[in-house]
């Protein structure tokens, strides 16, 4: 009884990477002396593999919730499924990934449990017997340190903020939890999933080229795509191009969109609003190409080119081709 319970998802059978990141978060809370368990939500034959994966990363008890409605985006179904797990495990701390479902579920779960709530955390740890969490505030301009002393507590963790921990196998056990979901009773239900992916997963890519308002229109993204393909990278965007419909919204990088931590991020025609910078500041090397030498993006960039991307990017493509001999 008690301990830290991570809300793990294997909605299409495969354990989400974010679930393992939460295991890392649970490990960081170990100074509090809390055991780690997991509520595993999903369906399909792959669930057994997901259970094994959790045990391999040190999760003792896995409460397996198997139901076809535990699929993409069904937040109300997740809330129903978690109810018997919480009743059985009575966790002091629940860790949830701040993804599509998690950002709806975490606050609602906290409200139902009258729990303490900290969302969108980028670091979790323990000090002096309390949970200490950090989160970005003011569009990434500042970092807030929150102290959570009350139990139960619900914490949501930003995807890709924590590393996947090394394996630490345990002889775990799995308990099946009976999940009874009345589809008709769900107040909000996903009827259709419209997939819209960057060519290469933005969050996994080691090279990301981002385009902004400065591209002037959707055509500019064709150049960026050519450069990205050459460098084995992915193309993303800041908010204005996605708001304008130049590129799919799922390409958006920033506090509201995706958080990326590639080895190389090239920001093209992006002025560097704080919301955008918050989502890219974990990149190892940042290159900015912008006509405006005063653009705030240069304050976080390591390498900068002041110039017109219509001239610089084709020249860069030509140079990279030369160096690669293609």
């Amino acid at each position: 009884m008690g301990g830290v319970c991570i809300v793990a998802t294997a909605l299409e059978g495969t354990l989400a990477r974010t679930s393992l990141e939460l295991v890392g978060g649970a490990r960081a809370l170990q100074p509090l002396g809390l055991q780690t368990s997991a509520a595993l939500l999903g369906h399909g034959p792959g669930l057994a593999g997901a259970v094994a994966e959790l045990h391999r990363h040190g999760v003792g008890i896995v409460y397996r919730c198997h139901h076809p409605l535990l699929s993409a985006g069904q937040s109300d179904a997740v809330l129903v499924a978690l109810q018997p797990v919480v009743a059985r495990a009575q966790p002091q701390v629940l860790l949830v990934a701040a993804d599509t479902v998690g950002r709806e579920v975490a606050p609602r779960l906290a409200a139902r449990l009258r729990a303490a709530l900290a969302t969108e955390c980028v670091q979790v740890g323990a000090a002096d017997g309390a949970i200490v969490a950090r989160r970005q505030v003011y569009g990434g301009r500042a970092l807030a340190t929150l102290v959570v002393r009350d139990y139960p507590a619900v914490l949501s963790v930003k995807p890709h903020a924590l590393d996947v921990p090394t394996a630490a196998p345990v002889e775990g056990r799995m308990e099946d939890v009976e999940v009874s979901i009345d589809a008709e009773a769900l107040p909000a239900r996903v009827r259709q999933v419209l997939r819209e992916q960057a060519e290469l997963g933005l969050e996994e890519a080691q090279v990301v080229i981002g385009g902004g308002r400065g591209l002037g229109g959707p055509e500019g993204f064709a150049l960026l795509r050519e450069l990205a393909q050459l460098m084995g990278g992915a193309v993303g965007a800041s908010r204005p191009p996605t708001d304008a419909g130049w590129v799919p919204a799922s390409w958006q990088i920033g506090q509201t969109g995706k958080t990326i931590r590639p080895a190389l991020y090239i920001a093209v025609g992006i002025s560097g609003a704080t919301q955008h910078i918050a989502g890219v500041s974990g990149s190892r090397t940042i290159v900015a190409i912008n006509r405006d030498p005063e653009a705030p993006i240069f304050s976080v960039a390591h390498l900068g080119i002041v110039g017109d991307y219509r001239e610089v990017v084709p020249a860069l493509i030509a140079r990279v081709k030369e160096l690669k001999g293609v």
Partner: protein
Amino acid sequence: MEIIVCLKQVVDPELPARDFAIDPVTRRQVREGRPLVISTYDENALEVGLQLKDRLGGKVTALTLGPAATSGDAIRLALAMGADQAVVVDDPQAPVRLGAAKARLLAAAVRRLGRFDLVLCGCESADWVERVVGPLLAEALQAACVTFVSRIEQVNGTLLVRRLADEGFHLVEVRPPAVLAVTSDESNRPRLPKVKDIMTARRKPVHTWPVEEVASQAGMEGPLEVEVREVTLPERTARCEFLSGDPGEQAAALAQRLRELKLL
């Protein structure tokens, strides 16, 4: 359709870095002397509400929680854009409250307003980005909840909403009453009020409710508050190395540096 839109006033998020400061006592951003604007996505929420009213009829109420003394501009803009009435929950402490405390007060204010079909708010605030107000309002009001909504259609008495998701979009069927947290989209760019709208707005009702009155009806629901120990500015260590020359030379220099860094 009865629609309530929650609007928050924040310091302009595009404020230059030199004007950004944290108050060491309140651990929140210094507001004095800084321009205040309606929080980014709240204006999109208002636009979505107004479009629904344009299509389906009904009433849009703008609801804000904040010090009444500084809430005037936000309220006037909302009324000029087309909201039918406004309610200000006058709360001098609002700028230092976290989302959970805000949601509790907003829920009480919504209940006091009476019947609603939809409560709309921004998917996140431009300052603390907790993303909790929508879901917590939904719990407190026992309403359905969908976040990151960009479009809303009414189909046979239920709502079909488009939600921005990790893998693209979800079309979600929602039964009102519902709380929807709205994100930006090409379809919900906030309208610019015309001069005539600004004049008409002066005649629309604005109700100011003292926060104590609202709080006394708030009940005990909601999550516990957490302590904000400190808010610090990260050290920016990056110092940008500018590459000079004509575009060809700049590109060559960049490729060379990327090669040295083993990124190419």
